[in-house]
């Protein structure tokens, strides 16, 4: 009884209580000091992030011949040799990874929250592991497993499956590895979302009203976790679009390996592509927060 009373009720009620507007800052010298500190911090951090990017942009728009400005490194991107192929591949890998990560993690996180709160720690630990494992160790492991196909069971259907995983046009093995790499980020995002809503009460309310479990998932759980799902998807996609080490070491050609590949022959093109991919990532970020903001956030 106690367990039920407090677990189902109290924290949820506390979370639902509107804390009211944040206390407004104090006036006077103390507030001015805070302002100055904030401005300094902002400037330093802004410079730290923006100076390298500004340098990259400057490098790509300067016309070495005339000394003026040029946009040709940007206009030339779409037709650059290998861009469409590698970018398309990376995007496909990214979307597949997002799908795989969400399919694996969303039901897990929901199940852990509703039915198996005791294994929450274990799941959290497992999902954080990829962060502490060096990618190189992961690559070595993947490579030795993949080499079982020619070494041990060549000619069997399993070996064919292993070879299919390594198809250069769409290397599924990268999807598998990227799902693992994305676990820490996607789990963090989903876990934060699950903690922010009272999933237990919401699902019980829906069950009480006659909804089946699949219906509860689609009409209650996913909408309640929409922001968290979008965040997880975004982080995963950004990770895949920027992942170089593993793709390169396993010998696949993706967008990041292509950027490195062309940097020798055409440094400006490679930097302009990097700048563009940065803008693309930011664009995604803005898009997600815009989607989230469609839901008005005013308080009662």
């Amino acid at each position, binding site marked *: *009884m*106690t*367990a*039920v*009373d407090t677990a*189902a*009720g109290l924290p*949820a*009620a506390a979370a*639902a*209580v509107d804390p009211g507007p944040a206390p407004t800052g104090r006036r006077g010298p103390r507030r001015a000091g805070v302002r100055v500190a904030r401005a300094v911090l902002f400037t330093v951090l802004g410079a730290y992030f923006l100076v390298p990017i500004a340098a990259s942009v400057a490098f790509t728009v300067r016309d070495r011949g005339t000394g003026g400005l040029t946009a040709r490194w940007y206009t030339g991107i779409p037709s650059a040799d290998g861009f469409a192929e590698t970018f398309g591949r990376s995007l496909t890998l990214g979307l597949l990874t997002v799908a795989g990560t969400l399919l694996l993690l969303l039901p897990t996180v929901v199940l852990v929250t509703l039915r198996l709160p005791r294994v929450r720690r274990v799941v959290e630990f497992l999902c954080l592991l990829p962060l502490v494992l060096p990618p190189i160790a992961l690559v070595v492991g993947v490579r030795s497993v993949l080499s079982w196909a020619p070494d041990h069971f060549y000619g069997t259907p399993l070996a064919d499956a292993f070879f299919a995983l390594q198809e250069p046009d769409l290397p599924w093995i990268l999807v598998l590895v990227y799902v693992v790499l994305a676990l820490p980020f996607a789990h963090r995002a989903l876990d934060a979302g699950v903690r922010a*809503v*009272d999933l237990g*009460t*919401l699902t*019980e*309310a*829906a*069950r*009480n*009203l*006659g*909804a*089946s479990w699949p*219906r509860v998932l689609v*009409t*209650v759980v996913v*909408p*309640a976790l*929409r922001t968290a799902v979008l965040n997880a998807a975004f982080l995963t996609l950004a990770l895949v679009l920027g992942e170089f080490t593993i793709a390169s070491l396993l010998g696949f050609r993706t967008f990041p390996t292509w950027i490195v590949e062309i940097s020798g022959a055409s440094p400006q093109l490679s930097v302009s592509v990097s700048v563009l991919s940065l803008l693309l990532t930011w664009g995604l970020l803005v898009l997600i927060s815009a989607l989230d903001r469609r*839901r*008005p*956030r*005013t*308080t*009662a």
Partner: protein
Amino acid sequence: MTAAVAGTPTATVAELRDRPPADVVLSGVTRTYGSTTALDALDLHVAGGEFLAVLGPSGCGKTTALRAIAGFEVPDAGTITVGGRDVTTVPPSKRDMGMVFQAYSLFPNLTAADNVAYGLAVRRRGRTERRRRAAELLELVGLADRGDRYPHQLSGGQQQRVALARALAVAPQVLLLDEPLSALDAQVRVQLRDEIRRIQLELGTTTVFVTHDQAEALSVADRVAVLRAGRLEQVASPDELYSRPATAFVARFVGTTSAVPAQLRADGQVDLLGTTRPVAGPVPVGDVVALLRPEQVVLRPDAGGRGRVVTRTFSGGTTRVTAVLPDGTEVAADVVSTESTELVPGTAVEVAPTARPVLLVPAGDA
């Protein structure tokens, strides 16, 4: 407050009212969590159309009992029937019950009207009917103009009203209320409590209302079941519970009591604070403890009196005055405020009962 009260009942209200009321019977329901026994062979009968409050301290099993009726807890032993149908192992989604939770439980992505209509959508009712019923139920709970608001745009009290409308929208056989008022502030709590009672009387839906607040239970329920350690202590009307508690636990939990040492004589009379009164029930002769309500005690200023006033708490029409006897016993009395001015702390008083104690218990058991 709502048009539904005064005018002709809406189609939805008429439909809810015309449903034959279902009774709920728990027999020998047991539920344990590890070594903790939440429900210990609980027997409870809720009559059709009745408003039953389940009252008890935190940890007494009241929420577990409600969740077992709703289907969120499966009993380890015992059966639960609703309207004669055994639902012990029926999943919650197939039980035809409406529940209002302690925590705010509205679906955040749906408007108030869509929340109310959720159960109807699950039952594949048409769009027109869903809209009509949602509007009628929002009217019933006094929120006719808030249908297009999202939960976060509503106050706590409004959210619980919408939750009540949502629970009633499916025309449930039984309405389950799990401390729905405990997250609200005092004024809203009283208002919504009275409104829940009004709606329940209007619809006649069998209702089980779990609360730890005895004032809440006594003011709205037809009968109150007091639970203690997973067992039923007493179930009775509020009046009976207050005036004839079955056990010392009930007497203490419901209302205020003072425990005063007394002696029970062989002739069935009790010596209490210098008076002699007849006793109703059988209690072993000897030292007993008499449980007295504050309105059953008078305090008279008397320089030679045995008691001395220790506290005086003004509460409008009456004032609660506590006196201490030489043996350390504290006795509380409610005194009409205009007559209590002399009873300041330190005053010597004579303490006397004006009525038969609500309960006598053997001295060791109090």
